């Protein structure tokens, strides 16, 4: 058994893993909206800041 069989099967398995990942991503609708996630990701900080603000205020109250 030559090493090339192992290498070949590994390379194909890796390729197929990525391929399956792509198919599931499409299925889950990741390609349906390509704009909103790019904006949403920028809000994560704001949300953290906001929730801490809220907690401080409630303490004061």
């Amino acid at each position, binding site marked *: 058994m030559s090493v*090339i069989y192992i290498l*070949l099967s590994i390379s*194909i398995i890796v*390729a197929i893993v990525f*391929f399956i990942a*792509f*198919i599931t991503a*499409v*299925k889950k*609708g990741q*390609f*349906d*909206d*390509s*704009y*909103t996630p790019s*904006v*949403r990701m*920028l*809000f994560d900080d*704001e*949300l953290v*800041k*906001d929730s801490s*603000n*809220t907690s401080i*205020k409630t303490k004061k109250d």
Partner: protein
Amino acid sequence: MEQTTCFHCGDNCNDLIIAFNEKSFCCNGCKTVYEIFSENDLTCYYDLQNSPGAIPKEIEGKYDFLSQKNIIEKLTEFNDEVIQITTLYIPHIHCSSCIWILENLNKLNSNITSSQVNFGKKTVRVTYNSTLTSLKEVVLLLSSIGYEPYISLDDFKTGKQNVNRSLIYKLGIAGFAFGNVMFLSFPEYFEVGEFWLEKYKHLFRWLMFAFSLPVVFYAGVDYFISAYKGINSKILNIDVPIAIGIAVLFIRSTIEISFDLGSGFFDSLTGLVFFLLLGKFFQQKTYSFLSFERDYKSYFPIAVTKITSEGNETPIQVYNIKKGDRLLIRNEELIPVDGILINGKARIDYSFVTGESESVSKISGDKLFAGGKQTSGVIEMEALKSVEQSYLTQLWSNDVFNKNKEDGFTNLTNTISKRFTIAVLSIAIIATSFWLYTDASKAMNVFTAVLIIACPCAIALSAPFTFGNLLRIFGKQKFYVKNASVIEQLASINTIIFDKTGTITSNKKSTANYEGESLSHSEEVLLKNTLRGSNHPLSRTLYNILDEHNIISLNHFEEHLGKGIEASHNKDHIKIGSASYVGTTETSVLNTTVHISTNNHYKGKYTFYNSYRKGLSELFNKLKKHYDLVILSGDNEGELENLKKLLPSKTKLIFNQKPDDKLEYIKYHQTEGAKVLMIGDGLNDAGALAQSNVGIAISENINVFSPACDAVLDASKFKHLNTFIRASKSAIKIIKWSFVLSLIYNIIGLYFAVTGQLAPVIAAILMPLSSISIVVFTTITTNILGKKIRLKSNS
């Protein structure tokens, strides 16, 4: 004076400025929204974008129908006892603040578990606990913060919409196979008889075979289907030579590797399908927030208020309205069915239905038509017909709405494909018969090689990439085109038909001319101040046109319904209104006029005219050289003289056209060989837009609905229509040039093929090279074209 703008919505605060928290607001609505946000620590909303908000509208009672079970069932996509999920369309979504606030709805109502915005589609998907809150509450919450969802009859459909993602799957599979096959076929490109290569080449080849199977039988299957359909209807479309190419590539390669004759052409095969699908994908520019397929259902409400025999108000689904039902129509609501006015002051705006520019007053007992919008107060009406049988909605039973415009149109690619296919087949046959005489062993080889190399990949790619790129460029210039075929049709038109109201006139402004004795200064002041107190649409328009004057307090003010208004200040007395009211006789029957008399002495009249879009006559003068121009209006002839002055003399002006008349007019001229571009805006043009070769809807606001059409043009770009038409013509030229380019590649390839020396490596180089150079050529040229458009439309 410096204008103060509203902190919430950005509008100018005119007379009234409401100060709150050191910020100024234009109305109480905006202030309330600000209060809601600041109480809930959501003022980040204003940090992300300046004045992102909208003024919340009066909504009392409007959404009562949302508590009905069958309506909730239709509007939710998931519904069990506890959790409901609904997707609402919100036209106001326009910036990152909108996304932020809508995804934080759970802070405003803790029973909302999550909300997710799709910015492109302008929708928000809300998940909430239906035992603690309700769909109605969610909608009311959204409306109260200025994000009123748009719910129309169109949403009342059964079944969920399936998203068609098959092209992405196919593209993914083809790309995956292409990459792997390239990688596996690489060693054999150099044809060195090395030991290792000899030993493993069979394994490599069969792996390539395995990778190409899904490409041929799944990703490329559309080409076989389309070619089969084409041959069935005796059309040699572009998919015929492509399908032959794919089939021959696959069969020959399989035979080659089975009998160890060579390495096959799997690399070219997968590459070909991948590039073709890439072209298809690129051409598919979709404006998910626009719909080009709307019918009356998108305008009509899902439910209205019915008055039961006991006098109670209950919501009723529009489809369930029967003859004889009593309906309550609120201000700004649409009349869903034909009926008779029972009581209330009706002022119906039919501009969308008939194209008449002025709203009409109706009194009890008058007939009301479906599609009109009530503009003053609440009315009660009795239904005479059901929704589908109403005057306006009947238009949609016309066959033209079931026809597919692309069916009757042979596009440029298919025109050339016919000659191309015949030429390739004859070359293949001649070359084969030549080789049969000289060297019969090579004959089959040459025959298949010709079919492989002549596979018109580059030709098939030129149109998708050119049009696809142009669609994007047009989109940036606010001209939203449905698909590539529309651009092609746009290049071939010879007649342009315009609707009048809302298309060449702007909805917002109208102008008025004064005729008669000139008014003294004190009379002007009195006139302006009298108009100030009236809410009649004509008073409002005239008020806005007149110069600014001091505010005086009137001693006496009285409005006579349907007649006019009178007022007095000190000793002066003024009457404003219809001719008979003021004490004179009406001279112009067709135009809208307002007469004025002071101290019982007739002074003169204001005649209202439509105000035409900027650059109208300039546009018409540019267009008249190449096209027949027609104005087809549903309005009366009142504007005839005005239009004659504005437009080139050979423009045909036709008035009093009903929706059906417009459709028939276009149909008739099409039988005479005219290729018609129809430009309209309202539902009354829907039939004409569908019948025409290209139907463009003009829209003041892209978020507001436009009727079914092929393209939507933003009203601000109306004067650049000519630029867009000329750009489509240039696109056709670009495609023709890229055809020439790809033919050169084909000739080079054919040389190798007919001489019997087509090695897989040559095919593998030529095919991607021709495809890529076509893509580069079309992209660069269309971008140059785009630059020209940008320069022109910004100038």
